[in-house]
């Protein structure tokens, strides 16, 4: 088959460049976002050699080409159209909404950090507990055996995720940037390779080893990037960029070994010689600037830094603050930096808690509540990335709370006698002045919570369940005729053979129709009894008094969503009237999960009937669609 010809014909039929917004492909489908779907001649696209099917779903025109073919056609398509290659995610992003760069950058950081949060929470909690215990033991508040296996092992587990954080970040970033995450992980491993000097020891021992690079042009320090975030993300981004380009230019038979080898080697060299030194210098100069700021009189510097602190957490440079703490401890015996950080962290926790208390969405609550508590323990990432930044306003409210608390700490010269623990346990580092620490905590928490409660958070409209927001379609009472199935949802009716799923299309589950829905409410298609409801709420069975057994299945492969985005209003054995609501579904969530949202309506006992006629095309709710 001629891939170029197929690609050219698709390009012509979808309305050429003027009508194309972006293109991507998955395992079997070419996914296009068009400016105007009406300008696309879908029928003609279906007739093109190699095209196995065409349908439009979740804002994309999806052209089924099959495994092994789709990537070739896609490459030609990109060459012909002159579009830049987009990842599937980018297409989804383009299909969703055009967000500004700042929001996208934040979303990207979130995409990188959110999946690794469980790892850093586990590690971070342990770290907070262990450091508090160690502090108490060292100061003889507590008498436990620190040489026991539990204590020794727990200490080991506690810092594992942080010690190897660049690997976790690199894997996640590789995924987020659309490259091979394992290659990304390799880049992360290179950056903290045991043969490189440990970044933590540089401060005390100085740089021990250097290496000339770029044919002797200049020297770099052979130092690992433990605790670095920015250099890792940049390095992986570069790697993904190289990798994706190589996939395009390297012939398929060499792709498997040439692309990984070249991607890792080139990126690795660039990282250790250019990216690492430059971006870790940037990280360091940010820290230098902070030290100047914090020294400003009347608490002004602390006010500013308390406000900005969480932003530096977002930038990932807070891991280096230990340096400031250590520096201050050696000059003054206490660190004035830690209380400031603690104020900022607790304020973010309070903002997150306010979101948790205010939201009515179970999902948000289940994320926000534990995140808030872990934040009070000093582990801020889940709250900041998982909750506050997503809604943004809570993040700002948290920053204001942090600023207020930090200013107070600075005015009363609150210093901490150690470092490493913020949040509620941070009190243990301020045992010489606990009252001021508590007041500082109360100020930060109070201000952040109150601001977030009043201004900072409102449940997003569509997330709050279709029950209240989505207007219920006007459903006229109808007189059901025997043997008739009425449309459970408004939309476009297609024969079951055209449902984008083999099992449904082949009629294994019975004959019927698919409906491309216009809204997210499924109603009863006739008077009858609910014969089954799936736990995942995406399908119901209903039987009519005259013996039709009907399956209504929302979407294809939506069983994988495990009920998320679906609400079911009926129970097994319940009697319903035509037009009664059965299921509400969130079309955006189905689209986000990458499933078609076609509502499948099948007569599962169609073998019992000689004749089954269907009515295709546009339908309103409760128009007759099947007659047996």
């Amino acid at each position, binding site marked *: 088959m001629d891939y170029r010809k197929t690609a050219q014909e698709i390009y012509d039929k979808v309305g050429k460049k003027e009508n194309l917004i972006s293109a991507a492909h998955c395992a079997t489908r070419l996914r296009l976002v068009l400016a105007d779907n009406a300008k696309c001649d879908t029928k003609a696209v279906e007739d093109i050699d190699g095209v196995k099917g065409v349908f439009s779903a979740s804002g994309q025109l999806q052209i089924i080409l099959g495994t092994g073919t789709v990537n070739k056609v896609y490459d030609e398509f990109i060459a012909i159209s002159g579009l830049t290659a987009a990842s599937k995610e980018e297409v989804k992003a383009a299909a969703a909404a055009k967000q500004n760069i700042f929001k996208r950058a934040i979303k990207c950081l979130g995409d990188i950090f959110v999946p690794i949060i469980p790892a850093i929470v586990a590690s971070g909690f342990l770290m907070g507990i262990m450091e508090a215990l160690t502090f108490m033991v060292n100061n003889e508040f507590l008498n436990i055996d620190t040489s026991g296996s539990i204590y020794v092992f727990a200490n080991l587990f506690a810092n594992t995720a942080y010690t190897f954080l660049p690997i976790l970040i690199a894997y996640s970033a590789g995924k987020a940037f659309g490259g091979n995450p394992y290659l990304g992980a390799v880049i992360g491993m290179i950056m903290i390779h045991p043969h490189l000097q440990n970044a933590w020891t540089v401060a005390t021992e100085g740089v021990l080893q250097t290496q000339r690079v770029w044919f002797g042009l200049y020297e770099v320090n052979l130092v690992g990037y433990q605790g670095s975030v920015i250099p890792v993300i940049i390095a992986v981004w570069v790697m993904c960029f190289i990798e994706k380009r190589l996939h395009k230019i390297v012939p398929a038979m060499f792709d498997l070994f040439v692309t990984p080898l070249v991607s890792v080697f080139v990126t690795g060299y660039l990282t250790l010689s250019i990216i690492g030194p430059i971006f870790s210098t940037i990280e360091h100069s940010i820290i230098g600037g902070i030290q100047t700021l914090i020294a400003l009189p009347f608490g002004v510097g602390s006010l500013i830094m308390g406000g900005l602190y969480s932003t530096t957490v977002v930038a990932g440079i807070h891991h280096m603050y230990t340096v400031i703490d250590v520096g201050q401890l050696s000059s003054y015996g206490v660190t004035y930096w830690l209380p400031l950080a603690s104020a900022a962290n607790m304020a973010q926790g309070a903002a997150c808690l306010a979101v948790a208390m205010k939201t009515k969405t179970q999902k948000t609550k289940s994320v926000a509540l534990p995140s808030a508590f872990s934040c009070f323990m000093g582990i801020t990432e889940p709250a900041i990335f998982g909750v506050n930044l997503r809604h943004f306003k809570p993040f700002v409210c948290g920053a204001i709370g942090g600023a207020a608390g930090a200013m107070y700490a600075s005015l009363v010269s609150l210093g901490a006698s150690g470092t490493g623990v913020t949040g509620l346990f941070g009190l243990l580092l301020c045992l010489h002045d606990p009252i001021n620490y508590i007041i500082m905590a109360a100020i930060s928490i109070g201000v952040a919570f109150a601001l977030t409660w009043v201004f900072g958070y409102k449940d997003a409209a569509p997330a709050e369940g279709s029950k209240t927001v989505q207007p219920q379609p006007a459903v006229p009472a109808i007189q059901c005729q025997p043997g008739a199935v009425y449309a459970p949802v408004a939309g476009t009716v297609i024969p079951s053979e055209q449902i984008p799923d083999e099992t449904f299309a082949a009629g294994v589950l019975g004959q019927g129709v698919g409906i491309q829905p216009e809204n997210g409410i499924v109603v009863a298609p006739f008077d009858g009894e609910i014969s089954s409801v799936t736990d995942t709420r995406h399908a119901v069975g209903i039987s009519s008094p005259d013996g039709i057994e009907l399956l209504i299945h929302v979407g294809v492969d939506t069983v*994988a969503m495990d009920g998320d985005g679906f609400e079911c209003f009926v129970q097994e054995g319940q009697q319903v009237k035509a037009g009664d609501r059965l299921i509400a579904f969130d079309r955006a969530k189905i689209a986000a999960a990458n499933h078609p949202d076609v509502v499948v309506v099948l007569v599962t006992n169609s073998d019992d009937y000689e004749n089954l006629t269907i009515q295709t095309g546009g339908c309103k709710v409760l128009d007759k669609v099947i007659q047996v």
Partner: protein
Amino acid sequence: MKQFQYTISDPIGVHARPAGLLAKAAKALDSTVTITKADGSKSAAATKLMAIMGMGIKTGETVTVTVEGGNEEANCAAMEQFFKENL
């Protein structure tokens, strides 16, 4: 009457698609095939798609498959084969 027990390994359990395949496979046999949950709480004829889906059988659950009437020997073997391949 012949019986066998099977533990579902399909990660999403017996949902529409496998239930449909099962109903089709069971219809082709001349025996009555019944599926019963391990705790005996629910039972359904394998040919009844809706009833099977309604059982809500999850991955890791063990079911008893009973084959009665007709060529029990061969049909039971066929059912066992089907479960292994599809569920």
